[in-house]
């Protein structure tokens, strides 16, 4: 079974530029998550999708971050304009809706390392 795919793996941009990240979840996984992991910290959830609908985006800085999952499969996360503090690894994860309570395991992609200069 193919894992969660993300691209690009690395990106360097200047502040005030825009950037987009792409994620393709495991086939058949209805739930998709975007996390931000700042160096030295644990991942923090930015947004959660169920199929093509947003379940929770309470921690997404909506003035500069946006995300979509139009067909309920792959997803893009965009930052416009970027700030220095956006330098982080952006992780995508997916999970299925099946399984017993508590067993909705999230599978993570390798992440995109963003450096804003």
């Amino acid at each position, binding site marked *: 079974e193919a894992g969660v795919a993300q691209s690009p793996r690395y990106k360097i941009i200047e502040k005030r530029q825009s950037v987009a990240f792409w994620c393709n979840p495991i086939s058949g996984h209805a739930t998709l998550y975007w996390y931000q992991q700042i160096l030295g*910290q*644990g*991942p923090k959830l930015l947004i959660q999708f169920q199929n093509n609908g947003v379940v929770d985006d309470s921690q997404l800085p909506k003035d500069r971050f946006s995300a979509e999952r139009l067909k309920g499969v792959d997803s893009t996360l965009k930052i416009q304009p970027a700030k220095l503090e956006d330098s982080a690894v952006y*992780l995508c994860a997916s999970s299925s809706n099946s399984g017993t309570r508590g*067993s909705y*395991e*999230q599978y993570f*992609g390798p*992440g995109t390392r963003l450096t804003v200069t």
Partner: protein
Amino acid sequence: AQSVTQLDSHVSVSEGTPVLLRCNYSSSYSPSLFWYVQHPNKGLQLLLKYTSAATLVKGINGFEAEFKKSETSFHLTKPSAHMSDAAEYFCVVRLAGSARQLTFGSGTQLTVLP
């Protein structure tokens, strides 16, 4: 609110000696708890999970963790460290309800010395 606290940001052990990574949780409900491992430039991988079944949970690569409600702890252990265990380890709690969201601890960096 639910949260986890990893008590050590860095742990260093010698190869072949036991590993102990400490985690305390805070939850109003019976929590689901997980340990994830992150090797450099690789994705997070699930080591093990506790979901209200047996309190001693066995995971991959010889790791195990014990859920202790009285101590609100979920410490990760391994009898004998291997060089390949060097990585960042995250204790994670899953929020109650249908959202199934994960809240990560701040991580423990494990160094294994030869």
